[in-house]
């Protein structure tokens, strides 16, 4: 178990609890967090669960693979700590993580 704080583009904060092993996209969708769509259902095929990880937490989230990198390159709001929520699997080391949401999901 752990906690994740999603911060919308207008700075609204949403705290959600997670179980080890679920993806950030799934956690957001299960908790009806606005600003994450997840159109492809977690296939790394649409880019609509784009999140920006707070700098200090980025190293805990692993590294995007080539497929994810390609989908991320398609979003105009790409930042240096961008990830696709469906590809970030929550671990105990991520308890307390801050995740920013882009203004739009492309």
């Amino acid at each position, binding site marked *: 178990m752990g906690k994740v704080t999603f911060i919308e583009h207008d700075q609204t904060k949403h705290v959600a609890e997670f179980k080890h092993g679920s993806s950030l996209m799934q956690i957001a969708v299960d908790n009806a967090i606005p600003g994450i*769509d997840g*159109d*492809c*259902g977690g*296939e*790394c*095929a*649409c*880019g609509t669960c784009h999140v920006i990880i707070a700098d200090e937490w980025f190293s805990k989230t692993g590294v995007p693979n080539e*497929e994810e990198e*390609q*989908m991320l*390159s*398609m979003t*105009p*709001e790409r930042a240096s700590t961008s990830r696709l929520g469906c590809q970030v699997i929550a671990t105990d080391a991520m308890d307390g993580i801050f995740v920013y949401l*882009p*203004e*739009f*999901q*492309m």
Partner: protein
Amino acid sequence: MSTISKTLYDIQSHVINATSKIVPMHRQIHGLKLLMGAKKKAFGTRRPVPEFVESAIPDVNTLALEDIDVSNPFLYRQDQWRAYFKRLRDEAPVHYQKKSPFGPFWSVTRYEDIMFVDKRHDLFSAEPQIILGDPPEGLSVEMFIAMDPPKHDVQRSSVQGVVAPKNLKELEDLIRSRTKDVLDSLPLEKPFNWVPMVSKELTGRMLATLLDFPYEERHKLVEWSDRMAGAASATGGEFADEGSMFDAAADMARSFSKLWRDKEARRAAGEEAGFDLISLLQSNEDTKDLINRPMEFIGNLTLLIVGGNDTTRNSMSGGLVAMKKFPQEFKKLKAKPELIPNMVSEIIRWQTPLAYMRRIAKQDVELGGDTIKKGDRVVMWYASGNRDERKFENPDDFVIDRRDARNHMSFGYGVHRCMGNRLAELQLRILWEELLKRFDKIEVVAEPELVQSNFVRGYSELMVKLSPKNDS
């Protein structure tokens, strides 16, 4: 493409690119038309241009599996497509048709399998075309929807800024004011054809803005787009005269070259770059000399006008048709207008304005128990995936509060996912917001007329009668 024709094609592209600085682009295209005409006289065509004459399509259950041909451009018009695709999904989800007028091809019809093919650009190439048939010979334009990574990524990223959040926010007010103008000018209590007066008008205005194209000439964008997407050889569309396609392409090349040069001159004179597509292409290192690569130049502009034309237009019409067939949904919408965003996704799922995208296998691939051979054409039928019972509950029903409407396949998935998806949704959302403010009843008063195509699922005529709200 055979090796010889590929070589000829490469030589042709090379010559066109090399001469583009001295010969105006529209003259080059005219030259190509003459060259192709002469070549056909001398050597014949590679495959005869199919001529499509409508006849009654048989009940799918009377056919052997191997005889099912979903490339028939009248399947949608005759409302047979649901039964045909259901049989394929149930009995042959990866199906081979050996002898269609467009040549042999595989059909992939289940949601999950389509997702697989769309994601695996390493196995399935989008080159050289994404439509089932061939474009007119010699007019094989290059566009990034039909390129594989990494070239695709470079070209797409140079134009995606036009639909970036910053632009979308600026566009919202403009779209709303235009939508209001168009809706306020419509006749009341009297049937009219919704397609030209609303769907084409609104999408035409949007395209002119995105391209910063002369506003009073915007109907040309719509005509070119219809012409390019409606080639008989490519999609079974109504335009069988290949010569007229060259004329349309030449006309388009002339207009866009002029637009490009004008912008270049204005920029050189110190004017600030706009946020339209051509300015974006000119601002990008990789595409700033696109005009010297005519087939790519025309291709990418064609892509952007076709991409923003048939798609949104037919969703604007399709929403009304869906409401006519499922009238309780209109009551639901009036009671809960906050359902509009989800309804927009559901309209796009239900309509699926473009039926498919095509790929070519880059190697032998096992799928659904069959082996797709290297070089085979593979068609991902989004229109079928969107009606797959394995994914969507009661898939043929139009349900504006459908829980998973957003999972529809109409935008495609993977690296070629629709770039204009958010803009399309914005246009549709605003249209419905403004419709609900004005009209109590929106009645479709006659059976719509449907377009001839295996690619575009659209309407040419939709007679509608509007009744205003009492309080307005």
